[in-house]
């Protein structure tokens, strides 16, 4: 009998990698929507209609403008939560994750399949209603649904090569979303020098932290809200699971588990790029990042993460021509 690890089809690897990304994407969008909705209730007057920034965190401002006239709460919710034509909406992400899961149902566990299917059925049901009964409740359900999927992935599937690809996809997506959020929020918050230290400022910053479920954990570590420390926490923290450094670290670890190359060395371009980014974050100081401009730093991070994604495609998913390699005959 064959007890060596089962090889993983390239098609399957690609499908589970994207499944991980899509689930994480849906969870992030739900959290952003929820936090922003909550924030609007705390603010008043000219501050109370800030739905534009949340669109900017997706990087899809132009797509929104093509499809909707005005930036209202209703339009933003429709666009980000339910729009089937917008490929990064919660609905589209879950549909795509489910389609991928369906195509690899023999690779993932039954529990995982059933959870992604249930989540899809819930969202499809909600999207049929013209009016959303409760945005916070909906967002909560999506987030818990995604977390349950993540938990089932961790607890019911062997931590094998396919699992490594799911983990890698999820954490690269997570690092990407945290970077975007920080970029957009920092850009909005920092220019308003007059507001520094006002209650609004604190409310806004705590919203940034809540957007990544990081408010409580930040408090435990740093206490008072201070922009510099918040940036440090979100980019460079080694323990907070949504910090960029933490996420890249996990993705890098998963990548090495897949290839079997020890960490600190590399056997393919993906490993080289991921390792370089990981070391950069391991040894960075927040003061230097801010001095060089946070926006520039975030931009560069995005470029590096995109490169890693492209390298993964070439190294693992691309179809090799016949005869390039073969299994060692047992």
């Amino acid at each position, binding site marked *: 009998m064959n007890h060596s690890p089962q090889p993983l089809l390239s098609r399957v690897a690609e499908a589970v990698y994207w499944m991980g990304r899509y689930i994480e994407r849906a969870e992030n969008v739900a959290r952003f929507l929820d936090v922003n909705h909550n924030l609007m209730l705390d603010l008043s007057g000219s501050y109370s209609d800030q739905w534009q920034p949340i669109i900017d965190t997706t990087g899809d401002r132009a797509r929104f403008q093509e499809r909707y006239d005005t930036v209202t709460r209703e339009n933003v919710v429709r666009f980000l939560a339910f729009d089937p034509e917008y490929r990064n909406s919660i609905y589209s992400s879950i549909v795509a994750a489910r389609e991928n899961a369906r195509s690899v149902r023999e690779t993932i566990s039954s529990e995982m399949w059933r959870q992604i*299917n249930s989540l899809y*059925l819930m969202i499809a049901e909600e999207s049929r209603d013209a009016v959303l009964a409760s945005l916070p409740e909906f967002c909560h359900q999506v987030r818990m649904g995604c977390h349950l999927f993540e938990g089932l992935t961790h607890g019911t599937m062997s931590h094998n090569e396919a699992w490594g690809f799911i983990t890698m996809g999820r954490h690269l997506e997570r690092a990407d979303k945290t970077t975007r959020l920080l970029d957009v929020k920092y850009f909005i918050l920092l220019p308003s020098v007059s507001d520094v230290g006002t209650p609004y400022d604190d409310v806004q910053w705590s919203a940034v932290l809540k957007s990544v479920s990081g408010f409580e954990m930040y408090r435990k570590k740093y206490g008072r809200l201070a922009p510099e420390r918040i940036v440090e926490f979100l980019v460079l923290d080694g323990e907070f699971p949504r910090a960029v450094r933490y996420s890249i670290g996990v993705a890098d670890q998963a990548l090495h588990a*897949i290839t079997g190359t020890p960490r600190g060395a590399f056997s393919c371009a993906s490993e080289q790029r991921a390792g370089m980014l990981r070391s950069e974050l391991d040894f960075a100081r927040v003061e230097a990042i801010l001095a060089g401009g946070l926006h520039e730093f975030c931009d560069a991070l995005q470029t590096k993460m995109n490169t890693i994604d492209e390298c993964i495609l070439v190294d693992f998913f691309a179809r090799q021509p016949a005869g390039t390699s*073969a299994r060692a005959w*047992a």
Partner: protein
Amino acid sequence: MRFSSYQTEEFYDEMFQPDGCPRPHVRLLVDTIGALSEGHLLRYKHAAERLLLQMGITFNVYGDSAGTERIFPFDLIPRIIPAEEWDRIERGLAQRIHALNLFIDDIYHEQKILKDSVIPAEIVLSAASYRQQCQGLNPPFHVWCHVTGTDLVRDRDGQFYVLEDNLRVPSGVSYVLENREVLKRIFPGVFDGLSVRPVNGYPGFLLEMLESIAPPVSNPRVVLLTPGIHNSAYFEHSFLAQQMGIQLVEGRDLLVSGQEVFMRTTKGLERVDVIYRRVDDDFLDPEVFRSDSLLGVPGLMGAYRAGRVALANAPGNGVADDKVIYAYVPEIIRYYEGEDPILPNVPTYMCWRDTDRRYVLEHLSELVVKSANESGGYGMLVGPHSTAEQRADFAEKIAAHPRNYIAQPTLALSRAPTIVDDHFEGRHVDLRPYVLCGKEIYVLPGGLTRVAMRKGSLVVNSSQGGGSKDTWVLAS
């Protein structure tokens, strides 16, 4: 819900005798259901439907642009087969599959049965599913039908008849396993006091059989080849691959190099030794069969001919699945086994014979006419339910291509009590047992009971509104 107002009418009923008393082997079941308080059964029914939807046990409705997914209707009332009746079915199926394998092997080698004029040679060689390309091939153990899903029906007399052999890529076994799981979860009390033979050993037997036909290599690798996610049986393909712990591959994941088959993995190419293919012959290899096929693997037949990869079921086995050749199966059994068939065929008129054809054309409104090479309830005329126009259409087709048509009397398929709205009604059922054949023959206890959910309908196919029931074989 009560059985008191249930009518068997003029049909053989799986649960009740004509006098309205439950048959002896279902008495306990009738008592269990009778003891439920009002509304319970409907609640179970809704819970089962929700579960099936969540499990994603759905099929896509062809021709529905919204890509609607439907669950395969599942009726909670099991169909029960007593041990001694099953014993005869099991022996009958084993006999039949054994004979059919000998027949196919003969056809692709010496054709003794044709030389002995048991079957006219032109009938066999003109079958659309006869594959010249398979002549002389030697699959392991001379087995061509590794997985079979024979359709059985019970007529008014209570006797089981073989309706179709389904040798090519039979589907439905996943529903047998999932129906049992759903029933155990939703309505566990229904099993009380009965000893029902389990079905969940099937994937293990299937894997064992597939490994047994591998070419002589150490650690053979078995994969399941699916046409892909859009195929109506995709759920089953992924389910079986998952249960066997083997890879589910599509044609694009495979390639042939030096007469060996490889799959593309993240670490390069890996050899494949056995393919449980759920792709029709026609689409297997564009170099040998249909050149426009995108589902298959160029060069696959070459690797197969060279004995470097095993295919189950063996290409070309459909020759014994042709509906005209079906009519000769009793003769085939006598010829190869030297014994009478244990399970009878449904009497069949072959339109290529002048006398049969005349009879068929004169009695179209009473008969079921089938095209020789179609399945899934397509290409079929159910005489008593047909319009004059449909009959005229078939008369023309039969006259033009007599070889392609057979006709059978319209059977009064047996019925089983089925939940309809808030009460029980009789619905026609058939039975598709599954048989595995490698070195030895294994018959899965029970099989898929398909139910024609529409009142009066005789068509049980899922593509045409059919549902299913869990099927129990009692241990004693």
